């Protein structure tokens, strides 16, 4: 029997390689567990990670789970739950009914499919361009005659006979589900609803039932090809993924857990795993970190917080502004363009696993774009890779402790890393291997720093308004480097940085997003009467969405008074194709002046996002979509405050010294154990602060101050 702990929350994040677990007790203490992800049956990886975490509190989870699970208030899962289904092409056999004439959409992919989510080099090199193999073969795609226009007018009515024929035909082919997508259905769903009614009728006649997936219900967002890709993801991959989640839930219920398993959605919401549009959860892992940062932002009075997540292959940024995150409605992911509402994340290929080489023709250093991943991993893993990686550089520079990698559970070979760097990179350039390794760190840091600058500047923001949190396995190691020189309000990491996404899942609110198309136009010179009419149009749509949200959340067991709403409008200058998400300053627009206030909010956001010269009020305004955020508060990890102690770390936290190559020479660095540092302690660089799953590097000229929440702030000495 281990420590007597009152566990209240568990957050998990199943990544492509590792499943992270964050376990929180009532006092706000956390433990972090890690285990290999088991794609075929994710409940195994989930259980192993939980076992690993529990060990830190001296628990034998396999024996003691029954003692704890009945009292736990929430368990949340995030991760790449559908990825295995997609990679192994083991999804459902789906039929698709489309607007006639669009049957080739999955083969042609709008053209963009041949290079979607590629990096710069592959985008400009057409030899790299290749189509994705569709998840639904052409023979299971049927077109039916119909057309709805941009005004929502049924210009060509639905040819119902063709729908009957298509449904019967697909059912004859043994499809396990039918997806329906017609152009402009998000504006006028009439034809999709009619097709669904016909399909149900036919299924009833045949005593045969398969699920129907309507784009107007599941993905009511413009751009038909991205909508189709998202719909296919739902129809093809969601149910097998849901089965996996049910497997985890069953395992938990067997040991006494009383609530439904919940899942993180890409849009930042949390939902029951029975949530229909489960495709929104398919790539939710990276979002977890932003949710965690959002929670810290709200709880610790840091309204503007930049989230930086550095892992093995990519460097991801998220922005919290005024305690809220922005949403992107069309994303490029896994080589596809998809309508998955996703918290805005900007990624570049900059990870610790990236390969290093010298271009034989230009003699210039290449970092990436490919990464060694977990298998074969960096050279120092000794799993067959002979091409050096960024992590090998970190190792030979002395920053990484070869005897304490992942808490000493993984052995790494310093000599092999050094040899590869020397022979493959440093010698061809004619420079010292340590200088090379330090140069690589500088270069990757500058790429990340520039990425941060770009993300902020494209939106018109200044670093001076932002705090930065660094997390991910490699985040704390590079945090000082990639934030150097940018005048942020503050830069910090947390001891649980390596499982921050899991933490974010545990810290998120129960949130659903709703959206609805609308046709609101304010031409130049619109009078008050016109503005008032449009204001009322917007308000009526919000009222409608609030009704839907309240009904759905009540069905999920919440009381209406627990739900809070935020009204959103997507505003653009007339004729623009990109709109701006604006949180309405008022819950309802009633008068012309109310509409003016919304427009003012739009112009304020717009001019901040771009430049003042880009404003163009002369052409008027349009709103084609409005949205609603419906939130119910959930129990969250308590952020425990510790009494501040002295600046000097306790003796038990000190781990001696190690030589670290920094600034072109070997220097003595002090070593500390992160978990044993106390609030109030200060660690001056050159220092390395080690934790089982991450390493924080403190360069010369910097120091780390541990505050009362155990945040590790990087400051100038």
């Amino acid at each position, binding site marked *: 029997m281990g420590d007597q702990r009152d566990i209240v929350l568990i957050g998990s994040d199943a990544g492509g390689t590792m499943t992270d677990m964050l376990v929180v007790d009532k006092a706000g203490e956390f433990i972090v567990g890690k285990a290999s992800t088991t794609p075929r049956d994710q409940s195994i990886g989930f259980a192993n990670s939980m076992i690993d975490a529990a060990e830190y509190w001296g628990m034998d989870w396999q024996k003691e789970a029954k003692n704890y699970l009945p009292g736990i208030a929430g368990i949340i899962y995030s991760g790449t739950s559908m990825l295995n289904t997609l990679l192994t092409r083991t999804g459902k056999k789906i039929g698709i009914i489309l607007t006639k004439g669009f049957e*080739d959409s999955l083969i*042609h992919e709008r053209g963009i499919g041949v290079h979607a989510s590629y990096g710069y*080099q592959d*985008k400009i090199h*057409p030899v790299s361009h290749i189509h994705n193999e569709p998840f639904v073969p*052409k*023979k299971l795609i049927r077109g039916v005659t119909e057309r709805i226009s941009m005004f929502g007018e049924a210009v060509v009515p639905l040819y119902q006979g063709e729908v009957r024929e298509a449904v019967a035909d697909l059912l004859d082919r043994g499809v396990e589900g039918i997806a329906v997508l017609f152009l*402009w259905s998000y504006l006028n769903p009439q034809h999709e609803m009619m097709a669904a009614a016909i399909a149900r009728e036919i299924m009833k006649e045949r005593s045969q039932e398969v699920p129907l997936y309507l784009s107007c219900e599941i993905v009511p967002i413009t751009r038909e090809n991205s909508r189709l890709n998202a719909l296919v993801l739902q129809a093809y991959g969601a149910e097998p993924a849901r089965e996996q989640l049910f497997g985890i839930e069953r395992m938990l219920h067997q040991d006494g857990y009383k609530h439904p398993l919940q899942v993180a959605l890409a849009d930042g919401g949390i939902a029951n795993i029975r949530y229909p549009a489960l495709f929104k959860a398919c790539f939710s892992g990276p979002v977890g970190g932003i949710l965690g940062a959002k929670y810290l932002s709200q709880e610790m009075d840091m309204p503007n917080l930049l989230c930086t997540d550095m892992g093995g292959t990519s460097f991801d940024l998220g922005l919290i502004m005024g305690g809220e995150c922005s949403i992107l409605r069309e994303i490029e992911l896994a080589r596809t363009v998809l309508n998955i509402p996703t918290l805005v994340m900007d990624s570049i290929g900059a990870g610790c696993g990236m390969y290093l080489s010298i271009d034989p023709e230009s003699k210039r250093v290449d970092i990436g774009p490919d990464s060694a991943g977990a298998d074969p991993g960096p050279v120092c893993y000794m799993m067959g890779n002979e091409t050096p990686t960024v992590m090998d550089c970190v190792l030979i520079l002395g920053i990484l402790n070869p005897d304490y990698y992942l808490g000493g559970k993984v052995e790494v070979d310093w000599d092999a890393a050094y040899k590869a760097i020397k022979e493959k990179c440093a010698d061809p350039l004619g*420079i010292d291997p340590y200088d090379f390794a330090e140069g690589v760190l500088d270069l990757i840091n500058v790429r990340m720093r520039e990425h941060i600058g770009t993300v902020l500047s494209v939106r018109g923001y200044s670093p001076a308004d932002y705090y930065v949190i660094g997390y991910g396995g490699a985040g704390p190691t590079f945090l000082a480097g990639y934030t150097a020189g940018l005048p942020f309000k503050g830069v910090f990491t947390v001891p649980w940085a390596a499982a921050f996404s899991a933490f974010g899942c545990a810290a998120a609110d129960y949130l659903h997003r709703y959206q609805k198309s609308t046709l609101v136009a304010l031409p130049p010179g619109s009078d008050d009467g016109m503005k008032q009419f449009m204001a009322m149009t917007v308000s009526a749509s919000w009222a409608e969405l609030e009704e839907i949200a309240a009904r759905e959340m009540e069905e999920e067991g919440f009381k209406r008074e627990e739900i809070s709403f935020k009204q959103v409008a997507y505003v653009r200058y007339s004729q623009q194709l990109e709109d701006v998400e604006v949180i309405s300053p008022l819950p309802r627009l009633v008068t012309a002046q109310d509409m003016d206030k919304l427009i003012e909010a739009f112009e304020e956001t717009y001019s901040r996002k771009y430049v003042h*010269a880009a404003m163009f009020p002369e052409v008027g305004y349009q709103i084609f979509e409005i949205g609603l955020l419906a939130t119910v508060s959930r129990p969250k990890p308590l952020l425990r405050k510790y009494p501040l102690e002295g600046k000097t770390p306790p003796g038990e936290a000190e781990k001696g010294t190690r030589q670290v190559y920094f600034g072109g020479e070997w220097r003595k660095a002090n070593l500390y154990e992160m978990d044993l540092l106390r609030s109030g302690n200060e660690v001056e660089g050159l220092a390395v602060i080690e934790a089982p799953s991450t390493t924080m590097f403190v360069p010369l000229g910097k120091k780390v101050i541990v505050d009362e929440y155990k945040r590790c702030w990087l400051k100038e000495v």
Partner: protein
Amino acid sequence: MEQKVVNKGIGWGGNTLKEMLDKKKQLWSDTGCYYGLQELSLSASAPFKLELLHARLLAAVIAGRETTRMISAAPQVREVAELAVALYTPEGDCLLQSTGIIIHITLMGQVVEWMIEQGYEEEGINDGDCFTSNDNAISGLHPPDVYDITPIFWEGELIGWVGTVIMELEIGAVVPGCMPSGATDRFSEGLRLSAEKSAENDKHLKSFERRIRFGSRTPDLLLLNRKGALAANVKVREEVKKAVAEFGIDYYMGATRELVELERRAQLERVKRRTVPGKFHSPTTIEVDLTRTIAPPTHAIGRVTLIPCDFHIKPDGRYFLDFDGTGAWGWHAANTTPSAIQGAVSMILTQTIAYTGNANQGTSLAVDMNVPYDSFVWPSTPNFASGWLFSWPLSGGVKWMTQQSHAFFCRGFVEEFRSGVTTSSGVFGAMTGKDHLGNDFNFLSTEAAGCWGGGAFATRDGVTASAAFMPNVDMGSVEIWELMLPTLWLGRKLLPDSCGWGRYRSGYSALSTFLIYKTPLLAFDTSATFLEDKIYPNIGMFGGYPSQGAFSKLITNANTKELISQEKPLAHGMGNPDQSDLEKNIDGDLTVVTRGGIFVDSLAKDGDVYQCFYGAIASGVGDPIKRDPALARKDLDNGLLGIERCRSMHCIEAKYDQETEEWAVDEGATAELREKRSKERLAKGIPAKEWWEKRRQHLAEGRLPRLLKVMYNESLTKGQRWPGEFRRFWNLPETFTFKED
């Protein structure tokens, strides 16, 4: 550091821009190295510092491009991404570039050089200015491509430029659209912005805005795009200044020059490692037919022009393109210019051999050219029309790219081998009339930019989305296009059997079908796109064939409303090619257009149907009868390959299983078909010498169409080296020319 001269020029070190430009040219001439940099001391002493600077600057131009995309109102920018951003030295040499329509990168720099030569400095170039240009007599590809160029100052001295290019869809020409049919000189091509000052203090001049307001049929789109471009330029400029503040101006100037020289050397090294030296003949013909346009009678002619480009790969890694023997320029929009050719060279190198992200002026410096003045590739007047100025770039240039593929192949870089895709006889959907909102309407749809089937590779089929001028293609969403156009898409399908056949086929191109919607009047213009109606420059590789060319069809007075009310079939794609769905299902007056450069005679209105096949000439690679039957089967299953073509082109026999809805290949029958075809070929074959003699006889006797005789005579008259080679190859008399009837 260079010596500073107080109160002289606005360039770095107090030099005038002209002095800097002259010095650069002189040093290049003296040393063969960019800015005379024989030693690369900065990169040798601190290679990572240079990379750090480069990373910062590249991030800046990428951010600039995204900014423009966000602000733009135009679907070709937001949806199709027809834009690009680049950073330049004070002399106008490109340092680095974003993705997008990268053909313009070199050309924007040439505008800067022209401004310097013209003495703009004396008229005033200040921090916060922007200069706008779409004048092809200066530099550029055609009038719709508008360049916005902003100087970058550091402590009062000009240290560089940033440029953004956006393709506009309406440019105020003699007829609506941006590549007007019938334009025969610059005066009929609309708004001309000749590197004029458009903004001061980062704000557009009212006078400039008025020019735009009265100079285009869609001024709001044009202005909003200028705002997007200006915003991008300002962002990049500020990022550059931050980098200079950090690295120091001396380092910045030295490093930027080294980046160009490093890339020049890298390009030579790439060529030496990946190709074999030698010479490739890469002739192209450009067809121009103005006999059915609004052109004045003096210009309303049909002609074919030969551009016999020879491509040399030198042992030291230099490329040499020789255009000797090119025919005459003319009063039509398809002439080209040395700057357009340089743009094409830079564009093609960037996507075929220099795709590392480091491509800049240095890449192009490794290429020499002979471009004869007073010819099709260099008109002797600034008044020439330029709507289709990328005639050679997108036809001959693509063929040149394919020749480069040969060189990769010979060296063993088989995977890098790609046959080209040229834009065909176009049939872009330029429209004019009233839109679905009741407004006057003029537009050119560029959805085609994402749906040209691409050329085949040596190891796999081509993709269904490729454009030579813009590698990151995107067709855009119908639900976005329909916001702008009075048309409802009845279909966007790939046209079966439209590929270039081969062991590996080219990609299929798309066919869009439109129901004309809520407009009483709509006219279609196939634009100034008239290059390859009869003679394909892109003829197929290693036994492959070129793909099908473009066409469009319009049915006016269509009975669609009646059909719809009775739930009868409409047309959504081709259907049976022998009698297409359009013709079978819809009654009305049919007009078929198989060539560009004309207005469609009939006017359309609500309920009519227009169909457009965006065919580009992409070629297959390898003998079609060696195609893997499994690949053919996949195309059959996807409805892209008809069984008749499968048999005739690939000699593959297959049967359709109604139950499984799949095709099954009959291996025995396939083997028989293939053996039979091989024997037929052998029986038809003749020795090369015999073929040569027959062809020679034809030439000697002048048995050619008149157009071709005129074409050859122009080249024989104008060329210096080429005429001798031509006559020697065909063993013709030394003074041989064709007798024109």
